[in-house]
């Protein structure tokens, strides 16, 4: 199967921060969670992917084509939702839609717009500056899903939204990948409920990619244990990924295959793994 995204030796130096080198391959048809702390380099990667920023070194290919050689038509295959809209606040939904219809031309699907807005119920004639955060994200999703794109990039699109709206986004993503040529990259410091649908997790930390693994493998490798300090001392130090010591004991993220079966391990989610890994290093 073709790869949706291929990054090879990608590097970008900014004034206070250096990204890379990043090597990352995302297969078509997958949902990938791109996670890391604020400032880890997630948005820089997305900007590079969208050709909004030029890399210092390295290669970026989307659907096998280097992005600087993308034609206008091919660019329509890529959709994105950021944490804010990029339209003047005085425009209303009617204006935005008529702009997009002209911009995306043949790729634009009014049918999808009406189907999605039957769900969202966004008002047609209210200036979008009066939209709530949730409505803005819904509008972003509506536009992204209405030009027949094959790659959907979400950059912190659901951060700060209530659980009900995030749950709707989960459904939209699962609907979107019913077509196996569709791919989603969700970049976020907190995946929360979107974690359920993610096939792969790529973890970026201080500009470097720590790993990209299937979520199932990742989650099954680790477990969380509540231990006494004495118990912790008996555990192979290699098994300890991170720990939080408090006055009455220790909570630790452990590698399951290095821990004796007598120790009770609870399931860890992606967020636990991220927090313990980052804090374990400090």
């Amino acid at each position, binding site marked *: 199967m073709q790869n949706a995204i291929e990054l090879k030796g990608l590097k970008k130096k900014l004034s206070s921060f250096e990204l890379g080198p990043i090597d990352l391959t995302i297969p078509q048809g997958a949902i990938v969670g791109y996670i890391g702390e604020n400032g880890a380099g997630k948005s820089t990667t997305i900007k590079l992917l969208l050709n909004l920023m030029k890399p210092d070194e390295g290669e970026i290919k989307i659907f096998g084509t280097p992005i600087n050689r993308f034609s206008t038509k091919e660019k329509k295959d890529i959709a994105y939702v950021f944490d804010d809209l990029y339209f003047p606040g005085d425009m209303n939904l009617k204006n935005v839609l008529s702009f997009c219809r002209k911009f995306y031309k043949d790729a634009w699907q009014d049918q999808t717009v009406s189907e999605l807005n039957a769900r969202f119920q966004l008002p047609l004639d209210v200036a979008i500056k009066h939209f709530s955060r949730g409505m803005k994200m819904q509008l972003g999703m509506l536009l992204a899903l209405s030009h027949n794109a094959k790659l959907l990039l979400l950059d912190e699109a659901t951060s700060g939204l209530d659980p009900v709206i995030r749950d709707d986004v989960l459904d939209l993503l699962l609907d979107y990948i019913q077509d196996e040529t569709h791919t989603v990259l969700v970049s976020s410091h907190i995946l929360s409920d979107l974690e359920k649908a993610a096939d792969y997790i790529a973890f970026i930390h201080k500009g470097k990619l720590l790993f990209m693994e*299937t979520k199932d493998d990742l989650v099954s490798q680790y477990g969380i244990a509540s231990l006494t300090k004495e118990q912790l001392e008996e555990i192979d130090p290699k098994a300890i990924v991170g720990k939080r010591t408090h006055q009455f004991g220790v909570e630790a993220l452990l590698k399951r295959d290095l821990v004796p079966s007598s120790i009770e391990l609870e399931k860890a989610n992606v967020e636990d793994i991220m927090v313990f890994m980052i804090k374990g290093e400090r």
Partner: protein
Amino acid sequence: MNIQIKNSSNDPIYLQIKNQIRDAIINGELEANERLPSIRLLAKELRISVITTKRAYDELETDGFIHSVQGKGSFVVPQNKELIKEKLLRKIETSIAEILHYSKQAGLSHEELLKMIQTMEDEHAKCD
């Protein structure tokens, strides 16, 4: 067909799906040549990743319970019940041989071993 995913279960999600579909095939709830939901539809309905459902289907295929046709979907392979039982019996025999080997090493008596099996059986019954 019903599939329930339990987060409390120690079994990974792909295994829960695999076992439930396998059981449905063995007990006849899913009939021979019946078409299974697509990998992507199942992932959407259960709200889990496509890779997870794909792994369940791949293992069912390896074990001979379903077969997949590119572009058409996955179908239940007609099962020979005698053959399934035969296979299970052989698995049990292998496991018993292993148990006997270990209990000899541990110096376990015949009675102690039987008691262990009885206890585990009771616990198993409680879990089901």
